[in-house]
């Protein structure tokens, strides 16, 4: 075997390995779906609290129930398609999946605990508002971990934007307009990064 043949084979292998490493994140469509649904839910919640819909404020819980059910259903449908895409089992994609699954579970735990605490009279209704900054905080961590792993700039931006959103919504947590503000902040910190991720995946 000559050096030229060996080097040619190694270049071939290096090229394959580099392309495998450069596999983009493929979960953008799921992220886009969740962030769009959450933005809509936040806006509807804000509208109910503002009295624009004529609905009782207790119905805001139903909005989030539908959000959870619809989001889970669409996640299953989209997840089936994504799992067969090339690169779906790259380290970055597996870490991203684990991060978002953990984040979703923790938000669910916080939400259910708040409902139970409210129904047993241990907390006031304002406790529900704290779910929003909690979710932004968890998103900031998830985006930060994935950004650190992949080096993607849009994820660094998303992590910082989510962290700032957590701070802003926590600052105005007792104000009913917090839900509208959170909706706008989610467009900036979640919908836009997810859209970039979808475009990157499509360009693969």
């Amino acid at each position: 075997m000559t050096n030229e043949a060996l080097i040619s084979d190694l270049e071939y292998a290096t090229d394959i390995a580099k392309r495998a490493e450069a596999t983009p994140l493929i979960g953008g469509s799921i992220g886009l779906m969740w962030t769009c649904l959450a933005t809509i839910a936040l806006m509807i919640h804000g509208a109910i609290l503002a009295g624009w819909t004529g609905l009782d404020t207790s119905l805001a819980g139903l909005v989030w129930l539908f959000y959870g059910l619809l989001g889970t259903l669409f996640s299953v449908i989209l997840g089936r398609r994504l799992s067969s895409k090339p690169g779906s089992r790259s380290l970055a994609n597996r870490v991203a999946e684990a991060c978002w699954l953990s984040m979703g579970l923790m938000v669910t735990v916080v939400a259910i605990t708040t409902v139970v605490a409210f129904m047993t009279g241990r907390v006031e209704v304002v406790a529900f508002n704290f779910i929003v900054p909690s979710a932004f905080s968890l998103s900031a961590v998830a985006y930060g971990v994935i950004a650190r792993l992949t080096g993607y700039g849009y994820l660094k931006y998303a992590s910082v934007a989510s962290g700032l959103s957590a701070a802003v919504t926590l600052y105005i947590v007792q104000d009913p307009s917090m839900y509208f503000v959170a909706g706008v902040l989610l467009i900036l910190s979640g919908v836009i990064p997810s859209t970039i991720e979808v475009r990157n995946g499509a360009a693969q």
Partner: protein
Amino acid sequence: MTDGGNPNIDIEAIDDVIHGRLRLGVMAYLSAISPASFPELRDKTGATNGNLSTHLTKLETAGYVRQEKGFKGKRPQTLVYLTDAGRAAWITYLDAMKALLGSN
């Protein structure tokens, strides 16, 4: 060993199971993405079905990869995993390559 007057390397130091061109490509891909589906590996390495199957069998016999046949929905699907032994052999192979090329 000589070939056309080119400077040569010590082939004995190279793991021949890995060093087939296609097997090298498979190991390189699996080192980054494992498991990978059979069609994914075929497309990324530019192999044909038969050729890839033959080389995967060779890697599997050496214990470097593991093939798992199952179903995705109603369609059959083969997933190929890089084993711990395969990852260790891959690292040893790369080290051997660095040493060999560095000595030339």
